[in-house]
């Protein structure tokens, strides 16, 4: 491993350590990570049980709604794991110290991805365990394809998180509410609970540009036809590569722009 790569790994590890300290130092934060996805599961679990007995569509595939809720939460947590954790640096007025150190902006992004994965595993993992315990729904029964669903949605969340972080770097903490709004804005066209064919044609075109739509389509195929649809998963992965590059590009550009305008020292509460 080259010295440059070793240095990068060391700096990313230091940032991951910083975010782990933050989690370890506050049990309410850990509880909060699991609280919302678990509450979603409680609500959708009862709805699912009711609909399975009153809907011929859902009777064919019990658990499809719970799987959709759990997977949607992966994307939501993945996005928050990047953007909200980045906000921590602004809340604590720490950006100046970070970027006066040898830390590169892309290394910070790498550390945010790692901590986002950890936070998502905690939050969604607890919700999945709850779904198994309370509704006897073992999402891991999907098998290896669950990893493909999970990673595609997580990476899409990262891309959105980088865009939100970039916008906050550009426009300040006044834009932080975008972190909560961004994912919900694309939820209706992601085909989480219904096929995108129900959307108006122009919205279907929008949906086809979103990796999430392919993942949820593949998930329904698995539940209703017991077939692993690899093609939509590959299409989602290809789109994710494009969006991750665009998200990272925007984040790095706004970082450069912040250096031009002196915002690295001034951004904060």
């Amino acid at each position, binding site marked *: 491993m080259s010295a440059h790569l070793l240095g990068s790994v060391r700096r990313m590890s*230091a940032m991951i*350590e910083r975010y782990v300290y933050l989690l370890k130092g506050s049990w309410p934060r850990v509880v909060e990570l699991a609280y919302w996805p678990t509450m979603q599961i409680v609500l959708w679990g009862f709805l699912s049980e009711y609909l399975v007995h009153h809907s011929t569509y859902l009777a064919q595939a019990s658990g499809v709604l719970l799987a959709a809720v759990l997977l949607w939460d992966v994307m939501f947590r993945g996005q928050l794991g990047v953007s909200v954790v980045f906000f921590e640096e602004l809340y604590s*007025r*720490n950006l100046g*110290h970070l970027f006066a150190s040898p830390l590169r902006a892309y290394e910070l992004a790498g550390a945010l991805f790692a901590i986002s994965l950890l936070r998502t595993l905690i939050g969604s993992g607890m919700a999945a365990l709850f779904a198994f315990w309370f509704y006897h729904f073992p999402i891991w029964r999907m098998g290896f394809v669950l990893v493909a669903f999970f990673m595609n949605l997580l990476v899409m969340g990262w891309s959105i998180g980088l865009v939100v972080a970039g916008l906050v770097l550009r426009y300040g903490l006044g834009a932080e509410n975008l972190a909560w709004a961004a994912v919900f804005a694309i939820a209706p066209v992601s085909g989480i609970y219904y096929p995108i064919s129900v959307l108006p044609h122009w919205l279907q075109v929008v949906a086809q540009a979103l990796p999430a739509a392919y993942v949820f389509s593949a998930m329904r195929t698995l539940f209703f036809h017991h077939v692993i649809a690899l093609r939509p998963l590959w299409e989602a992965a290809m789109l994710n590569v494009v969006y991750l590059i665009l998200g990272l590009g925007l984040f790095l550009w706004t970082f450069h722009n912040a250096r*031009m305008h002196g915002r690295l*020292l001034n951004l*904060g509460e």
Partner: protein
Amino acid sequence: MSGEWAIAVEGLTKRYGPVVAVESLSFTVGCGQVLGLLGGNGAGKTTTLAMLMGLLLPSSGSISVLGEDLLRHRYRVLERINFSSPYVDLPHRLTIYQNLRVYGGLYGVRGIKMRIQQLARDLDLEGLLHRPYGRLSAGQRTRASLAKALINSPQLLLLDEPTASLDPDTADRLRGTLRDYQKASGAAVVLASHNMLEVERLCDDVIMLRQGTLFDRGSPAHLIAKYGRETLEEVFLDMARGRSLL
């Protein structure tokens, strides 16, 4: 630009649209030298420091730090410099120890535990190491920030008002720590301060900034003698208020 200087700045200018923050600033800082940046609010001190760290990109001009062109090879330099400023905090929820560990990792410090213990002794932080930064008093935060600034034993230390909000006793001890570090390490130090006594005590040389331009430069004794004043503070007040100095 030459490797014999810790810093060599030529024609440094920073404009924000029509506003000129720093204009055509040229100066050098020798290795092992302590340079003071003096000037009123808005004179360009913090802007100059930010450009010396690469946190702010200049509109024009060149900056050489520790023999490297900062604008082209910033990351070759950053492991060897550090800074402290009251305008930038450390993460509030992390303890001093945790913060220093994280920054030790970012700067690639070996033997981080021993380095933290050493800094805690030097800066009287031993009893506070496991207290969250957000629960420290202003003076304790300043010392913790200075510990972070010294974590990588920097060859160039940039300090923005290092003793702001410290009581006179603590400020005096902290200046002693800085002086000891500078003498032991041979590091160059650039210090922006409003505390004239501090500048007189610590700095070999002083740059006086007014409205983003270099007004004068010399040792504190030289400037006091040149303008026929009793103290550096009198020289500063005359400059800041635009009074005739000669």
